[in-house]
């Protein structure tokens, strides 16, 4: 930008006053200031050129136009195939199929060789901007999902792994009847779980458990999953907020193709952000609970049990570290606004899994603590880096979303 200062040519044009030209003499013999200025302007008029932006300006402007004009088709896709995938570089290609509706085809492969390829259609402005429809279909593979046993007292020494691949398809419908605050959602999807040999260093679950001791082990199962949500959301944005809250209840029904592993689950979530000193600090609290309910004569398969552990639950523990029929999680973050683009935070997580609803209390919770940095826009978290410490060690979390 600074390069469009006066050129040498223009500078030379202004040399007039150093030796006042005859043309600049007024009738009383003195030079005229206006005449000198006019002569310089006349000289510049012979050397006019259009403004030429620098290479940097052109590049940034091109990026901006691409974003604003809906022509940015290719985009990074970093969301892993499944929790615990690790860093998952990938790309997506999104195109508008109507002024607002998009079709996004994307995929990635993680450092643990988890893979996902999927296509998603989103129509965000149905019913006069009150509803959003999302239809997604794809395939994913997870190669080394940890399983440490069922219950709150499992140990890391008992880790076993399983691997699965899964084609899936589904549709979700989200309605905001008043366009704000109230959120109603519903959807259905179908997914087939089929299991492979895990590739990690931990033994395979097949070698540790049997189908009798671990429901669902080794059995390819297709689930039809339906869900309904009612929520109250007064955060400024879902993906980054320093005030407001989100309260929701979601009911799920899972029905398998041979009626062996059907169950119901209810998820409860309460998130509240308390701004302090004009949002320069934010005390953010999150509580989540999940409870499963057997269908008659059926069991919850081990891989669909509620779990804790990983980058957005108990951050100081491995992904899926604790599994059982129910889970409860409470999290607190003290977020510090460093500037408009960066927050730091100290956090504390506590949670437990339980085999019965009556055990969903605050006794015997697993805890961790840590600190982190978040880089964000006003509405979304671009990168979250957390360092979390628990009794099982220190873990580093990289994520492209807020913890809650």
């Amino acid at each position, binding site marked *: 930008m600074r390069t*469009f200062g006066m050129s040498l040519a223009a*500078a030379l044009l202004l*040399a007039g006053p150093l*030796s006042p030209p005859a043309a600049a003499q007024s009738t009383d013999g003195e030079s*005229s*200031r206006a005449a000198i200025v006019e002569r310089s302007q*006349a000289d510049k008029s012979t050397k*006019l050129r259009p403004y030429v932006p620098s290479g940097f300006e052109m590049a940034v402007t091109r990026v901006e136009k691409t974003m604003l004009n809906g022509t940015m088709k290719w985009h990074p896709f970093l969301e892993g195939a499944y929790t615990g995938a690790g860093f998952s570089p990938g790309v997506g290609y999104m195109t508008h199929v109507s002024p607002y509706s998009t079709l996004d085809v994307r995929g990635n492969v993680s450092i643990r060789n988890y893979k996902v390829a999927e296509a998603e259609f989103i129509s965000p402005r149905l019913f006069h901007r009150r509803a959003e429809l999302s239809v997604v279909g794809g395939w994913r593979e997870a190669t080394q999902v940890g399983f440490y046993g069922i219950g709150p007292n499992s140990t890391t020494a008992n880790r076993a792994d399983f691997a699965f691949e899964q084609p899936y398809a589904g549709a979700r419908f989200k309605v905001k009847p008043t366009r704000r605050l109230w959120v109603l959602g519903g959807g259905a999807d179908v997914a087939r779980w089929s299991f492979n040999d895990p590739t990690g260093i931990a033994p395979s679950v097949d070698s540790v458990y049997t189908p009798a001791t671990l429901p669902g082990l080794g059995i390819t199962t297709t689930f039809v999953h339906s869900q309904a949500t009612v929520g109250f959301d007064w955060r400024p944005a879902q993906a980054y907020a320093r005030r407001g809250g989100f309260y929701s209840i979601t009911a799920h029904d899972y029905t398998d193709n041979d009626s062996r592993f059907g169950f119901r689950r209810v998820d409860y979530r309460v998130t509240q952000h308390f701004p302090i000193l*004009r949002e320069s600090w934010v005390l953010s609290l999150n509580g989540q609970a999940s409870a499963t309910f057997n269908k008659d004569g059926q069991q919850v398969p081990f891989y669909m049990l509620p779990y804790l552990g990983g980058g957005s639950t108990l951050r100081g523990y491995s992904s899926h570290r604790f599994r059982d029929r129910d889970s409860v999680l409470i999290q607190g973050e003290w977020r510090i*606004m460093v500037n408009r683009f960066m927050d730091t935070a100290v956090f504390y997580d506590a949670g437990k899994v339980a085999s019965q609803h009556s055990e969903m209390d605050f006794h015997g919770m697993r805890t961790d603590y840590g600190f982190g940095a978040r880089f964000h826009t006003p509405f979304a978290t671009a990168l979250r880096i957390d360092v979390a410490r628990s009794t099982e060690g220190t873990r580093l979390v990289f994520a492209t979303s807020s913890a809650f």
Partner: protein
Amino acid sequence: MRSTRLTASLAMVAAVFFGVTASTTSLRFLGDDPLVKEPDSQDASQAQASEIGDLYEMVYNLFEQPKYKPSGLRAQNINTVDEVPDSSWFTNRVTAQPLSAADLVRGPNVGAPPDPSKWVIFREKTSGVHPGFTARDAKGETWFLEFDPPYYPEGATAALLMASKFYWAFGYNQVETFLTTLDPRHVEFDPKATIKRPNGKRTRFTRDDLDEVLERVARRPDGTYRVVAGRLLPGKVLGYFRYEGTRPDDPNDLVPHEHRRELRALRVFGAWTNLTDLKSKNTLDTLVVENGRPVVKHWLQDVGSTFGMNNDLHEWDLSWEHFYQGDTTLKRLASFGFTRSPWQTVDYVEKPAIGKFEGTRFDPMTWRPQTATTAYMEMRPDDAFWAARRVAAFNREMITAIIHTGQFTDPSVEPALVNIMLKRRDKILRAYLPAVNPVVAPRLRERELVFDNAAVNADVARAPRLYTSAWFEFDNATRALRPLGESSSPTTSIEAPAALPNQMGSFVAIDIAADGTDYASWRRPVRAYFRRQPEGWTLVGLDREPDGNAGQVASLR
């Protein structure tokens, strides 16, 4: 990045405008000094529309601009008496002639207000922080309409209207702006009206598009909407001007914009009115025909980010910090936020129509727009002094007259705003008027030099014990000074030495300083030059802060 070529060019520009030259044989003062109007002598019809992207300007101003080292150079578009001549950028108003309340209320408006009995929408609004449309009124005239957000009812529309009058009075080219009404029942859509969609294509503007905007703005109980309407500017739109460099396609644009005093002075005017969104996209260049010649005219087209109205309801740090500041970032990072910033605790008047605007904790020296421009960084104490004199020209009645145009429903808003403006005005005057030698308006009568002290007159400084003067005969060709004598006075009237020349065309130079004052800067003399003419002595030159006072410049930053 600045080259020596540019430095040389600046020296030559300076020579053109205020007569500082390196030659010992050229005339210091020319026949038409001081220049009262910057000529636009050339046909600028070759000027082409160009744009600057929001993202580029933001990135540049946030991360490149902080590295910029101000040149310390005196403004380059000032004339020989340290004033800004009228130009396609600026017209001296508030200090040039007494402005009545009626003048101020009228401001830039010369035409009739819009007829809101019908609005025909034909395009969305593409700039500014608050929602709006481009529409034609019942008379078919094109207007840019802007609404109040629901959390600032009346505030945003009033801010734009009032600021347009303040900035017009300062001297800037301003859009004609009116408060009016939009009744959705009387809105139509031009058959060719389009709106840009997220897929980048323009499709027909629909009632739902109107509804979507109206859902996000403040609605009156009767179902109508208060809007502020800006009249379409005449001429061909050439895009935004930049706060540095010159337009290479405009032959009349000789002075790099960062060295235009009126653009530097936006740091002071911006602080007073809280114009936090100082960016190119809030400016406009148009090609207009003046005196039969196409010339480029430069506008501050959107001054609505004023009076606390640029902030979202929860943007507390605006006007206290740039969008990004390395020093505060480091402090908060290192202290986990325990290093407090003023914006965290400052008290605001809790009125939606006022927003985050106050005068008690306000400090003009630490006020910050969203991002700094090059012109902002180049401001020197003499530029700030020049701006502060214009701020000083606004008395309570003038401020009240403008604030009254905001038409606030809540009767307590107007006096509250007036009081805030007065508090901020006084702080600006205290900060900037005494910071340089404040001697202004020197007049040389037959045997008496009379002048004013801008800081004392504004009641922000005590008069010095003594004014001193050193008198010289000045040779306009050789610049030689021949001492004539010295004199002093406890008042702003000093007797001339007996040896004053009296032949027509002769010059005298007078160094005027103060003694017995708290301000060191007052002991540095202002030099005034007078030329003997048939009607008497005429002021032709005034040097307040020559180039080289780097220490003083640093004190402003």
